[in-house]
């Protein structure tokens, strides 16, 4: 079995190795490095690359990766797992989406792939990560967290040919009812889309809430679904659980708040919307109603702002469009 090496994590045979991948330097000159876990099974098989916290405050993904790896028995594994639970480590420490060291150009790591060796901090991070991903990954799973604890949806690259077919089979094995076959021209710079163009099937999972909306129940559910993906791609034995028909969308709509104020949501994730459905209520400082947020489009709620406060321009709701059972 060939030696597997990512950063300081090195694995010569069956088992699990831990180490760090350097993605940049801190302002005090110490290395900015992110945790890496490698697992090699007793039998040959594909390489599954899983990462979390591409956005620093989306911690559910880290917990999912951690639990999956803690509960993994490499004696029953076919193939290899490369797991990076916390990509955007400096953002994670700040409990923020983006790194505090990113000066200009936004800092959204999931718009920076494949990265740039001499670009901004976030581009250099993306480059360090994606170079390894491209070299090793047979399949990619990218774990995200949204705003509220009830978020449950997934998207896969609807690429032509085998990449799209394999991505769809991962999404069906994962089995969230709300699933978007993502048009290949959206989410430019995301790890999933860049990998799909490089021939690597992938899946983005959006599950659970940030900060104090974090719940342990979510972690167990997602880990079990990931194991089902691993059965589907031949890394674990056992029957692949069938989740039945899913609800597919044509695309999604991000809807921004054009009003600010105190806010209470009126819908739950997974709920059907019509154009004009009340999404939530705005109030002024005295508690008087100042407006209703109405859905501009029909579809299914993928994510909804939890309140309690909103500034104009924040993401009010994320809608899956043209739902159909497939």
């Amino acid at each position, binding site marked *: 079995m060939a030696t597997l090496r990512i950063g300081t994590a090195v694995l010569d045979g069956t088992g699990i190795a831990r180490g760090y991948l350097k993605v940049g330097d801190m302002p005090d000159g110490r290395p900015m490095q992110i945790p890496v876990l490698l697992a090699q099974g007793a039998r040959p098989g594909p390489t599954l690359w899983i990462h979390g916290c591409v956005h620093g405050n989306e*911690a559910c993904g880290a917990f999912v990766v951690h639990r999956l790896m*803690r509960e993994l028995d490499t004696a029953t594994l076919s193939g290899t797992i490369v797991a990076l639970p916390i990509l955007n480590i400096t953002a994670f420490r700040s*409990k923020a989406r983006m790194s505090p060291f990113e000066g200009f150009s936004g800092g959204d790591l999931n718009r920076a792939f494949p990265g740039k060796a001499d670009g901004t901090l976030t581009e250099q991070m993306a480059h360090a990560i994606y170079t390894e991903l491209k070299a090793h990954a047979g399949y990619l799973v990218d774990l995200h967290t949204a705003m509220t604890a009830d978020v449950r949806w997934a998207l896969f690259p609807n690429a032509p040919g085998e990449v799209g077919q394999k991505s769809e089979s991962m999404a069906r094995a994962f089995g969230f009812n709300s699933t978007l076959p993502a048009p290949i021209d959206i989410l430019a710079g995301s790890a999933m889309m860049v990998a799909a163009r490089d021939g690597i099937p992938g899946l983005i999972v959006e599950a659970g809430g940030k900060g*104090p909306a*974090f719940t342990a129940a979510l972690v167990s559910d997602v880990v079990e679904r990931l194991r089902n993906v691993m059965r589907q791609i031949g890394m674990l034995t056992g029957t692949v659980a069938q989740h039945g028909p899913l609800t597919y969308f044509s695309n999604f709509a991000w809807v921004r708040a054009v009003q600010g104020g105190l806010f*209470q949501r009126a819908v739950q994730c997974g709920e059907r919307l019509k154009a004009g459905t009340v999404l939530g209520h705005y109030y*002024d400082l005295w*508690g008087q109603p100042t407006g209703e947020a109405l859905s501009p489009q029909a579809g299914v709620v993928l994510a909804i702002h939890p309140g309690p406060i909103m500034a104009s321009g924040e993401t009010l709701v994320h809608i899956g469009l043209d739902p159909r059972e497939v």
Partner: protein
Amino acid sequence: MAPATTVIRVGTAEAAGVGVTRGELRVGDTPDGEAVTIPVAIVRGAGEGPVLWINGCVHGDEFCGAFIIHEMLRTLDATSLSGVVVALPILNITASQRGQRMSPFATFGFGDLNRCFPGNPGGAFTDQMAHAIYSPLRQYADYFIDFHTALTPDTRWALFANAPGDVGRKSEGIARAFGLKSTLPAPMDILGGSSMIAAARDGIPSLIVEMGGIGPAFERETVLEGAERLRNVMRHLGMLAEKPTEHGPLTYFSNFAWVNATRGGLFERAVQCGERVDKGTLVGRYIGAHGDIVEEVKSPHAGIVLAINPGPAMATGDVLVHIGLDPRDT
């Protein structure tokens, strides 16, 4: 009790007769010279009765209180009210706008507004805010309730000023009418600088409520429950006509213990609010960057969980768990 002829004036809100008056109280200035003002609502009832003063968001990110106060105000009919409600739902407005506990204008360790009462007109930003808020509170309030929010949606506890004599008895009366099972008769030597203790020393019966979770842990159920409990306090005080609900025996504590984290890491809690813990009960697990469980945290005290850190990430010194000590049913 404010005589019916007295005008109640808090900032620009001036309540002379029956009905609702809204205005703003200036509590300071921003660095660009604009006034920092906070919302005030005064509801003056048709009947005679006490002045109930209600505050929210003394810590800027504790929004459940603002929503509870708002919900109660929206359902309050001045013609069926006896007495006066003075509500300041968002005290620490510059902190609230940022969704954080303390004001960005706070200086040098004076950031916790609930440690600055009765305030100081020549003090730091937060001292001056406290002074602007506390002066009319002391002038008008017969009873005082201060609403807080903790970390997780399941937080439900209260504490009242266990002052000697009438103030303590009346404080206990409003705590029992609010009726959260976990209730601390707060020793008068803790929470120095809180508005509750400052008010109790000035003879005003007082209660602090801790309900619900901050940020994305915000839930409407907490708001509806809190507003109904608040109405029950108003029934108990004779401000609303209906008979108050009896909540039965509560669990009292001798004091509370704040336990701070002595290590950092990813964190998963193992207990819920209201749960009994013994010394040594598992309260949560620290997880390293690679997913190893690096420590199982045990409770250093026996008692009841008042608040618990929800994770997902913790640095050393964060509040790990808040425990009510020596629980007893009364």
